[in-house]
């Protein structure tokens, strides 16, 4: 009854970061299908194109040109057709205010970007595994808050 992979969309303007993330996803035990976009405008275009299957989870860089992560978050949250998507924000900021603000705006996950690839893999593995439990066990997504 359940599908056995997670659809991920990654929005990040930094090519190295995109590569780190996709490499880390590849090494997870859970099957993932990842598509990447380079900025916030491209992300919204992708999501609003009815031809595309919506992802289960979006990893959103807070600092992007053209349209920031926060603006994307607000737009996504304002549109009911995106209700089922889990939003994971990541940033280099660890200011308590920033973090609480993104949660209040509707983010489910806040990731403080780790400095090492190994640590990033650990963090993503935990995020995707927990998200998997939300998808497969009917947990209430509105209560899904995770800070890494």
């Amino acid at each position: 009854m359940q599908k056995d992979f997670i659809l991920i969309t990654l929005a990040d303007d930094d090519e190295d970061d995109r590569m780190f993330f996709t490499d880390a996803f590849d090494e997870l035990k859970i099957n993932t299908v990842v598509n990447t976009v380079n900025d916030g405008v491209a992300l919204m275009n992708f999501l609003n194109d009815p031809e595309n299957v919506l992802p289960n989870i979006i990893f959103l860089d807070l600092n992007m040109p053209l349209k920031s992560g926060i603006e994307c978050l607000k737009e996504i949250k304002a549109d009911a057709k995106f209700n089922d998507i889990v939003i994971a924000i990541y940033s280099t900021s660890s200011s308590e205010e920033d973090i609480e603000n993104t949660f209040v705006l509707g983010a489910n996950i806040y990731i403080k970007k780790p400095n090492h690839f190994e640590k990033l893999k650990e963090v993503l593995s935990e995020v995707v595994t927990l998200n998997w439990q939300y998808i497969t066990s009917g947990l209430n997504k509105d209560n899904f808050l995770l800070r890494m």
Partner: protein
Amino acid sequence: MKLFLKTDTQLLIKKILEEKLDVFNVKYNLVNTNEILFLETIDTVTYENITSVLNEYGFQIIENQKNIIVQKIKESIIEMIFNEEAPAVKSSVYLAEKLDHSYGYLSNLFSEVTYTSIENFIIIQKIEYVKKLITHHSLTLTEIAFKLNYSSVAHLSSQFKNTTGITPSAFQRIIKKRSEITNQNIN
């Protein structure tokens, strides 16, 4: 007059499956004639409708035995946590008795299928229940700790923080602010 038919069964199966599945308006891929991959989560009602439509045409859904046991484990865990009348026995004993398999067997199977351990799943579910009690019933942490058999409020708080990365009070604050925003938007 007589017609002699030659059948391309693969094509026939494919056409029937497409015709029947398209009605449900869900995105899918026909991997081959034995396998349909759904690209989105199917709710139970749709799942049952699809099964019954396909059954009419002689298609049987082969359920994965492992998944069935895992589903039963999950249901038993949820029942154990949400039902306060449930007997206070160790979860390993409870599951082994209820499902009539050794705990070692259940535990391995569970990890293989769900990518997490039974112990971890119990913690996730417990914390979910705590979240629900915080948001819906406005119980205090002391009341919740007592209700869920935690040895102390500190233990509950630290498990909550370890699992979610935030404290129960931050959680409560965030959810409250969120609902204020939603209410503003409605008004």
